[in-house]
Structures are given as C-alpha cells and as structure tokens.
C-alpha cells in the first residue's frame, strides 16, 4: 500500500468520524441547555473551547449567541471544526483514493456531502437542526457499515480503522468535557437535581444509554457513567475500547514498535485513572492529558507510515549522511 494512500484513508476516516461526532456534540449541548435552569447555564460558549479553536472563532465572530456558534460548528466553510468542513475534507480524501475504496462508499460519502450542503437552511432552523444532525449521524454510520461489509481486510482497512478510532476516542473525550464545562458550579445545590438527567443526555448523545444500562446494571450515576465512557471494554465508543482497537490494528502492520509503545502509554493512562475520585476540574485536566497522548499516537503513525513523515525522514537521513 502506498504511504500516501494509507495517509489519505486514515484522514478520510478521521474526518468522517469528526463530522459525526460534531453532530453528537451539538446535540448533547442542545439537550443540556433545555434541561438546566436558565440562569445557571453557560450556553454555547464552552463548545468553542472544547473544540480547541477559541482564537479562530473570535477572529470572525463577536458573540457566543446560539446562531453564531451553530454557524461556526455546522456550516462555516472556513471553520476548521465545522461539519461542512469535515465532510468536505472527508470527500476530498475519498476522491483522492476513490480508486481504492468501493464505488458505493464513495457515492455515499459524496452524497452525504451534497446532503449536508443542500439542507443547510434546515440545519440552521431550531426545529430542523435535530433531524439534520441525526441524518448526518445515521449516514455516517451507514458508511462505516458499508466499509466494514465490503472492504478487503488489508492494510488500507487497518488505516481506516485506526483513523476512525483515534478520532472517536478524541471526540468522546470532548463530548464528556461538555458536561464538565457546563458544571463548574457543580457543588451548588441548585444543580443537584439535574445531574442525573444531564449524564443521561451525554449517554444518549453517544448512543450509549441502553448499552450503559445493560452493561452496568446501575442507575445513572456520575462515577459509573464516567467509568463506562472512559474504561468500558465492551462499548465501541469508550475511549479505552478505541485505543484497544488501535492496539490490535497496529500489530498487523510492519515495524509497529514505536506506534505500539505510544498506544500502550495512552492505554495505561486510561486504565490507571481513579475516575471516581476526580472532581470536574480534575476530570477536565485528565481529558486534556488524554488528548495529548492521542496526538502522540498520531505522530508515531505519521513518522512510520505516512508519506509526509517518510519524505521528512529521508531528508533528515540524507542531511546526516552528507
């Protein structure tokens, strides 16, 4: 497999996953806002921090009013985190490797991109937004299923899976972060009654509610939900699960030692965390730490397998030789 093609498949999967999870992220915040008493909510501003692009946002937008933030997260082509932008890049990457992926997969990715663009009016209305975002999620899931049901289990598929799982782990951590950001005033008695309902909405936004119930057989309790979403060995959107998927994939590739070392490091961090003892602030820091580890895994893959990393490495060798 060409190093450039491996890289492109990996990014195609990452952008697809990013678009889907951005839709989930917006849905979870919208639900939280509806549930929490008006005067205590932080509104939409925390979402900008969670995407890590506040500077970028403030260059162009001057308030954190719902419409502005929605525009930035859904339709703005210049926004690095918007659904429109992720889908555009997913499509560009898919177009670059359309000779490699099944034709139907390309047609679906292409079609999703058209849908997202054509239905922007719907997306921007309060009423239409939920169904629009759900359609994005559903179609993304269709593409995941299509790839899983039609692609040879070769290196290309390994890179698709690694891109998807890396992005999914990262985005799940961000979705949990929405909750912690909205609850800086956690100790206030005012919010207590709403706590469970809010964690339920986080679970639902990750399509995790039923699975949580089945796996944990517990009421919705913060400590259990956090444990489930970080450390479940069974739920495919839990961070540990995603990292373990990558652990498996990478060992089927040549020269995997460096990347595997990075993956193990992330895995130890997740498994070792005493989550029940974390307050919201600690949880937030922990999430930051996980995101850094995930990025390290990306860097290791890039250096070892991708064209940009390869060419850079070769240039360094030549410099040393001369």
């Amino acid at each position, binding site marked *: *497999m*060409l*190093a*450039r*093609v*491996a890289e492109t498949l990996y990014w195609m999967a990452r952008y697809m996953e990013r678009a889907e999870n951005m839709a989930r992220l917006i849905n979870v915040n919208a639900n939280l806002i509806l549930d929490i008493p008006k005067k205590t909510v932080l509104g939409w501003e925390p979402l900008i921090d969670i995407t890590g692009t506040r500077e970028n946002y403030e260059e162009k937008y001057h308030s954190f009013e719902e419409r502005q933030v929605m525009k930035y997260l859904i339709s703005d082509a210049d926004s690095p985190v918007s659904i429109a932008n992720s889908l555009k890049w997913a499509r*560009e990457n898919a*177009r*670059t*490797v*359309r*000779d*490699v992926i099944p*034709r139907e997969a*390309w*047609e679906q990715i*292409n*079609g999703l991109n*058209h849908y997202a663009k054509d239905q922007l009016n719907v997306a921007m209305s309060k009423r239409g937004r939920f169904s629009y975002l759900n359609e994005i999620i559903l179609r993304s899931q269709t593409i995941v299923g299509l790839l899983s049901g039609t692609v040879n289990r070769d*290196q290309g598929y390994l890179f698709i899976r690694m891109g998807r799982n890396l992005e999914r782990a990262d985005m799940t951590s961000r979705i949990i972060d929405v909750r912690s950001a909205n609850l800086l005033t956690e100790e206030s008695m005012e919010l207590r009654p709403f706590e469970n309902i809010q964690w339920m909405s986080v679970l639902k936004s990750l399509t995790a509610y039923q699975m949580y119930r089945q796996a944990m057989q517990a009421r919705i309790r913060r400590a259990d939900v956090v444990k489930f979403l970080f450390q479940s060995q069974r739920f495919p959107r839990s961070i540990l699960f995603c990292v373990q998927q990558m652990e498996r994939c990478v060992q089927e*590739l*040549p020269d995997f030692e460096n990347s595997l070392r990075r993956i193990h490091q992330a895995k130890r961090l997740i498994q070792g965390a005493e989550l029940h003892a974390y307050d919201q602030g600690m949880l937030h820091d922990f999430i930051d730490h996980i995101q850094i580890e995930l990025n390290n895994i990306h860097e290791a893959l890039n250096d070892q*397998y991708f*064209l940009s990393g*390869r*060419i850079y490495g070769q240039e360094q060798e030549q410099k040393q030789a001369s």
Partner: protein
Amino acid sequence: MSVSWNEYDPGKFFDELIKTKGKPRKYAKNLAKYLADHSDEELETRKAVAELSIKEMGITFTVYTEEEGSIDRSWPFDILPRMIPKSEWDQIEKGLKQRVHALNLFINDIYHDQKIIKDKIFPKELLANSVNFRKECVGVSPPLNIWAHICGSDLVRDSDGTMYVLEDNLRVPSGVSYMLENRSVMKRVFPELFESYNIQPVDDYCSQLFDMLASLSPRPADYPEVVVLTPGIFNSAYFEHSYLAQQMGCELVEGRDLVVQDDDCVYMRTVEGLQRVDVIYRRIDDLFLDPEAFHPDSMLGVPGLMRAWKKGNVALANAPGAGVADDKVVYAFVPEIIKYYLGEEVLLPNVPTYRCMFQDEQDYVLSHLDELVVKPANESGGYGMMIGPMASKKEREKFAQLIKKDPRNYIAQPTLGLSTVPTFVDHGVEPRHVDLRPFILSGDNTSVTMGGLTRVALRKGSLVVNSSQGGGSKDTWIVEEEA
C-alpha cells in the same frame, strides 16, 4: 406532447439519426419511435434520473474559477445517444489501426535513422521547428518499438457524410472514462432500449488497457507492477486517472510517491518501504516528467525517471517524445506517412489540408482566406487560429502577412459543417453539432474502442464541444443493423 420528428430539421448538415424532417435513418427507427411514443414528462423524468446518477456517482470534471479556485463539477451529459451502424464502424476501425500503426513507425524512425527525411518524403526543417520533438529520446528503443500506446483521434463528419480525422492526440489523450461512465448512466436511464437494440459493449477497455500496459513490462511476470501517474487532484482529468487506476486495480501514484534509486530503477514508497515499479501509465506532460531532464522546477515529476526509462528499467506509456507526431503539420503528412511505411492508401481521410510551406498550396490559401480555417502548427486549444468566414478583412490581411513571413508554421483547412445529433434542449429536441473521439491501444496487439466519446456542443449553432466551454457528451452506440 412528445418528440415530433416532423418538426426536427437538420437543415444542410448531416444528422446522425434523422435523415430529413420526419425520416429517421434505418438504424435509428426504433429509437425515434420510442421517443415519439413517450410523453415529455416521461422523458424529463429520464433526464432527471441521468442527472441524479451523475451527481451520485460523482462523475466530475475539474474547472478553475477565479473566486473558488479548483472545483469539480458534474459532467454535462445528454441522454439521447449517437448511433453508428456496425458496418460503417468496422471500416473506421480499420482506418484508425492503419493510421496509428504508421504513426508509430514514423516516431520510431524519427528518433533513429530518420529514413523518411533522407528519402525526402518528410521535410527536415519541420522537425527542427517541432516543439514536441525531444532530443533526449534520440536513439532510445522503447519496448516493442511502440511510442504511442494510447491514441485518441478526433473524428468529424462533414455535410456530405464523409468521416474525417481532425487530429490525433498522442500525448496524454483523455475522455475514455467518460465514454465508459456514459454507458453505465444510459443503462440506468433506458434499460429497455438496450433490450431492443444490439448495442456493442464498451466495458472491456480497462482490461485491454491493463493487458497492453503489462505487455510493456521490462521484467517478465504474470502481474507486473503497473501504476497510473497523475499530476494530482487539481488536474482537470483527475477523475479519469482515478477511474482507470480503480478499474485496472493498480496504484494511482503522484510524483512524490515515486523515487529513482542508484540502481536506476523506479520504486514507490509504500507502508512497507520501497517497491519496484515496472510500467507507468503517465498522465503528466513530457516536460514535467523529470526535473533532472526537463523543467528543473517541476513538482509533479520524478527526478531520474528519464534515466530509468532510457536504461529500459521502466516502461512509460505513452513514451516521452511521442507527441512529435501530433502537431498539425505532421498531421498534414499522414497520407504520405502511411504510404511510405505501409505501402497503402489512407483508409480514413484527413480533412483536406493546405500546407503553406509549398508555394502552390500557399497561393491557394492566400486567395481563399475567406473560406478557410488557418491554424498555426504548434498551438493547441484553438489559440492563434483564424476562422475565415467569420474573420474581418483586417484579420485576414494580418494572417496573410503571418503566412508569408513564416509559411512553415501554418496550415489551412476548409470549414466543415459538423454533423448533428438530436439533443435535449429547454423546449424539446433540436440538432446539435458533435465530434467523436475513439481510443486506439497499441501494444503486442492493437485494439480500438467500440465507438468512443461523442462530445456535443450544447449551445445552438456552436461548434465548440469542449466541456469547459459549454460542451457536453453523449453515449455512442455502435449498432448491428437488423437484416
């Protein structure tokens, strides 16, 4: 209301389907009846199906705009097919094979002994002026001595029904993927017509292309490593590059994926490390292939590629330098070239071409400037051209001067009345002008596509079939006539 052939008027042009008002050609009768029997609404629905399929299938071509940079647009397509009877096509196919065979002998001769020049058939000065002659290729013997492995020749039909070759594209001809995609769209749109007609299939092009490319491999193997080299996603034909790689099941590579090592072999950078490449179907122009040999600042090519090719360690299709045979002055000599190498008369005629370098032909051109199209030899895409009947007196005088100053650089041809095909327009069906680009593959044997890509000028009266300038395309049916 439905399509009414009594109101369809091809005028003075040759129409490929309708002979005269209300009279379809014999092989088009079923189609004409089918269209007349269906309502406008029904046909509009079919049209919508085609447009949706094209959008969903992502059949695109890339255009550049000032505001948006490079964007890919859906491929403009007309659902009414162009038809050619099989008996006529068989003759055209023979003519194309003869032509490409002779052109390959010509190119090989030009880069070796230049016998055709020594025998004074082909003027030496023309070669000196050719922008597509590559001195780097002199003395090189590519596999099977074939240089132009893939040729796309443009055919046009004049008002009297004669099919002419307008030009041969021997560098990186494109369009074949659209020919294949048009057919798959048509099968979705008019499945029932495929039942009532005996339409020759076009689907085997990609496997023929792969076999031809594999036959060039320097290392004998069942599955030589064949790759398609593209300039990248911003190229207007990227869709096609990707399509062909996919259909052949080979890697689509960019210049940066390849590297020539000290052993003068070409390798691609894979996840596992370097892997040897045997055959490159390159869709990059000669001058961008190798920054060591040509443009030093080319980012698209592969340093050392020419070195590897000259040593015979990798095959390039088409071979660098093959373009020497596709300038307009060489074109004018094709009948002589065929006669010289094959001892045969030309089967598929050239458009009559006057070569200004010969005094008698120049005299004719200068006294008939108002009827002729004058073209410079080494420009393409219609640059620096004069269309006599539409030119002002001043323009004609300017060209007369240009011709006298540099007669070798100019040829002239009569203006042709391109044939038409019924085409969907806003209100019903009207004739629109078309051309045809078949593709000829030359390797250990020669094959020609069944038909080719029919391009259509969608604007009324226009002769410009180019997709970036309001052109579209049609499916081309080679049909067996029923006895």
